[in-house]
């Protein structure tokens, strides 16, 4: 059986704690394993904070970010949509994780780890909006 959670938040980093609470309840009721809940919340945290920090110029708090979680048998799909500047998270440069810590760039880890935790990521620019879909296969505690 499918289930969906739809949330809309203003583009403020402070919104994330409430979003995390609401998504945790949904994912737990969907029977997701603890490590899958961690992975999905990590992806949500990184994609949301990236939008807040980089998608808008000076009026970011007047913009909304739409979040959807879909639970289908064996799959959770996380979707985020914003009307900020065009940004494909799959185009972000990958950090060199073999560099010593004193030579590492500080940015880029969040999206890189998100890509590694997810089963797949899809990005589209639709009607002037960024739409990112992140799929997590077999997230259930019994998988």
């Amino acid at each position, binding site marked *: 059986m499918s289930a969906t959670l739809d949330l809309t938040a203003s583009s403020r980093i402070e919104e994330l*704690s409430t979003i995390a609470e609401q998504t945790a309840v949904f994912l737990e009721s969907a029977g997701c394993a603890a490590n899958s809940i961690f992975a999905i919340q990590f992806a949500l945290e990184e994609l949301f904070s990236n939008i807040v920090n980089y998608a808008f110029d000076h009026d970011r708090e007047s913009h909304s970010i739409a979040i959807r979680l879909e639970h289908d048998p064996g799959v959770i799909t996380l979707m985020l949509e914003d009307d900020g500047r065009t940004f494909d998270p799959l185009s972000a440069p990958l950090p060199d994780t073999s560099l010593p810590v004193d030579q590492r760039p500080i940015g880029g880890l969040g999206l890189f780890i998100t890509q590694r935790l997810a089963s797949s990521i899809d990005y589209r620019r639709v009607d002037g909006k960024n739409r990112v879909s992140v799929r997590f296969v077999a997230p259930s505690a019994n998988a």
Partner: protein
Amino acid sequence: MDIVATNQSDFAMAEDNSGRGLRCVLSGRLDTERCGRISEAILARLQASGQPVTFDLADVPFVASAFLRLCILAARLVGSGNVHLANTAPPIKKVFKIAGLDGPIRID
């Protein structure tokens, strides 16, 4: 542990009574917002001491990449190999491993 130096609502940092530097006890979600709030104070303390640091994550169920950045900056201040994560939950170990930080940062 003798908490003498820094004890804020968001974390507690003190000399580790084993003599291995500082011990920073954190609890709750270390998300982007929270790391933004605590990083400056933690890094200032590390810069002042230059000692190895152990982050005790026994009561931390979640970290964002902002915490990994904090650990990288901490390692730059006190030296690679001198940052230790203790009592680390398996999903947190996994993100440090993906980031290639399970070498420069000791994780238990």
